[in-house]
């Protein structure tokens, strides 16, 4: 029993990371109908920005929560800026073209970031400093959770609620929803579609960077290709929950994380990556719109 509960804790923390990456995917898709395949690589950049920031701030030698928070904020801001640049130079020129061109551009940006990362950072792994000292907290029944796992959970949940608040309660969120519903009509109502799209990308990139920092904190090995697999799995998580749906992304991420850990713990670790895609196939067969997604008729 305690083993199962421990696995559940492992799964939920791992899943909350997927959820955080999936949020960015789902938000960009919801607004632009674009699968931003470079999202996983922005997650990688977030981890690297935090790596350099924490070295510059000396957060590694003197770990304290204030500095850790600063590292997180710096990394999110830097990744947000990268998101704006990517949108301006890669996606904006093809926004009026077919959806396929945008998708292929996204794959191109992803490859550019990965190989650019190898060029700039080198392909051997770096080790993320311990900007928060790890401590174990026993939960009873032999189950333990580390303070880092708690931080991942809390930060993920906080960012999810922040995002929900921005989208549903603020003016800019209202504009985002309007652009998502009908960009032409939104433009006619005086909404600057370009600005909203840029803002969406910035927000999505910031979420990815936050996920990157949180993962690096817990699993300190970072390298330029670290974003490929989590990016892909978070995409599956977004589809699983219903792409374009914010609570769906969170649910999908958690389901993925738990499924993965349970497969490794009780079946075989060789199926770790396979389970994500098995889930994808199952959901596409059973409920193509995703767990929380609403089926919409395709306009012809």
């Amino acid at each position, binding site marked *: 029993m305690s083993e199962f509960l421990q696995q559940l804790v*492992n799964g939920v923390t791992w899943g909350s990371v997927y959820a955080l990456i999936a949020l960015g995917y789902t938000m960009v898709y919801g607004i632009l109908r674009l699968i931003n395949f470079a999202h996983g690589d922005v997650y990688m950049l977030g981890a690297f920005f935090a790596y350099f920031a924490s070295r510059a701030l000396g957060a590694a030698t003197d770990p304290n929560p204030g500095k850790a928070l600063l590292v997180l904020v710096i990394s999110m801001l830097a990744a947000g800026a990268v998101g704006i640049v990517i949108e301006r130079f890669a996606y904006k020129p093809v926004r009026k073209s077919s959806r396929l061109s945008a998708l292929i551009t996204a794959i191109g940006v992803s490859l550019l970031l990965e190989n650019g990362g190898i060029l700039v950072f080198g392909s051997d792994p770096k080790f993320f400093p*311990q900007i928060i000292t790890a401590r174990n907290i026993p939960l009873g029944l032999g189950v333990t959770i580390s303070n880092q796992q708690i931080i991942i959970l809390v930060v993920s949940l906080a960012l999810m609620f922040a995002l929900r608040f921005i989208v549903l309660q603020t003016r800019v969120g209202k504009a985002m929803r309007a652009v998502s519903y009908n960009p032409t009509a939104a433009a006619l109502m005086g909404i600057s579609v370009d600005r909203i799209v840029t803002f969406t990308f910035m927000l999505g990139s910031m979420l990815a960077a936050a996920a990157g920092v949180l993962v690096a904190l817990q699993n300190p090995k970072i390298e330029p290709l670290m974003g490929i697999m989590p990016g892909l799995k978070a995409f599956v998580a977004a589809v699983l929950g219903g792409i374009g749906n914010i609570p769906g992304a969170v649910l999908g991420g958690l389901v993925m994380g738990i499924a993965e850990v349970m497969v490794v713990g009780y079946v075989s670790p060789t199926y770790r990556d396979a389970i994500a895609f098995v889930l994808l196939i199952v959901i596409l067969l059973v409920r193509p719109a995703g767990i929380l997604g609403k089926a919409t008729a395709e306009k012809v």
Partner: protein
Amino acid sequence: MTSRLLSRLAALAALGFALAGCGGSGSKNEIVIGEYGSLTGNDATFGQSTKNGVELAYQELVANKQGKIGGLPVRIVSEDDQGKAEEAATVVQKLLNQDRVVTVIGEVASSRSLAAAPACQAAQVPMISPSSTNPKVTLVGDYIFRMCFIDPFQGTVMAKFAAQNLKLKKVAILKDVKSDYSVGLTQFFTESFTALGGSVITEQAFSAGDQDFRAQLTAIKAKHPDAIYIPGYYTEVGLIARQARELGLTCPLLGGDGWESDQLIQIGGDALNGAYYSNHFAVDNPDPRLQEFLGRYKAKYGNEPDAIGGLAYDAANVLFQALQKLSETDPETFAGFSSAKAGTDARKAAEKKLRDLIATTTGYPGVTGTITLDENRNAAKPAMVIAIKGGKKVYDSTINP
């Protein structure tokens, strides 16, 4: 139609030029030795240490003999395989066909040595792996050698140490399913440990490159082992150690020579205290040959060498010695190593003689111990058990074959 024919002709002509270019590149009179390893990638220190060890040996050749053997200058060509088996096969093909090397020194990881060895065997060019321990490596053919002990022995060493020195009964294993090294070592450890009266209570697996091992460790924790044997490479081991401690697993961790890297403790930190692993040498061994090597290595590279670097140094010196011997006893055949003779029968004859000389290496005083190759071209050497205490690697005991 004609344009298609023309373009085909053009392609053929281009191919012809390219081939002519290859043949022409080796016209200088020198001995070219190839070295390959993972200079980048997941276990980059393996390749870097190997390169450093070979370079140090070469530097001494330059200092003592102006870098010449039998009147021919020696040149080392290094290639990076990025820690990937398929790249290892590619770069070795390049060394063989483009650089026309006389001998190939390389790889640490057994999976990568196994990927490259068949090409060397087919070309009848000796390949000396400094530190691949999986027994299958030298079984590829009679041109493949190694400078270290093999895993059936290394597995026994840790099994003996666990059963007799640490008095452990129940051990869990966490292995890398994608690595020949890890799978082999798991098998040999299990056989010896059960023969010594212990039991392996659970065997969990991961794949190199994984980040999260908590699921496997949780399953291990539920079985309450006395220790966990992790025959993996240092990057994963460091992460596993940390996550094990986070999950409240306090038992000792045991491992093999794949742990040997100065990055191990940097990654694993305090979580590794109380761990033991089997290795090729211990830096605190007072042996004067070893201490002298450590001093020179430190003077050149600024950091303490690991056993991987020591084995590469020995591999290069064993090769230099064999070449030297051939140049003295049979200068006529030795002339076949000149790069001008690449691809000729003279080169083939020279390679055959060189192979025989390396195979009969007996009692070579290496820095990693005395090297005598057996009939399977493996070196039988004692293994050291290294303990990690207070963030430092400390010599614990020697176990003889």
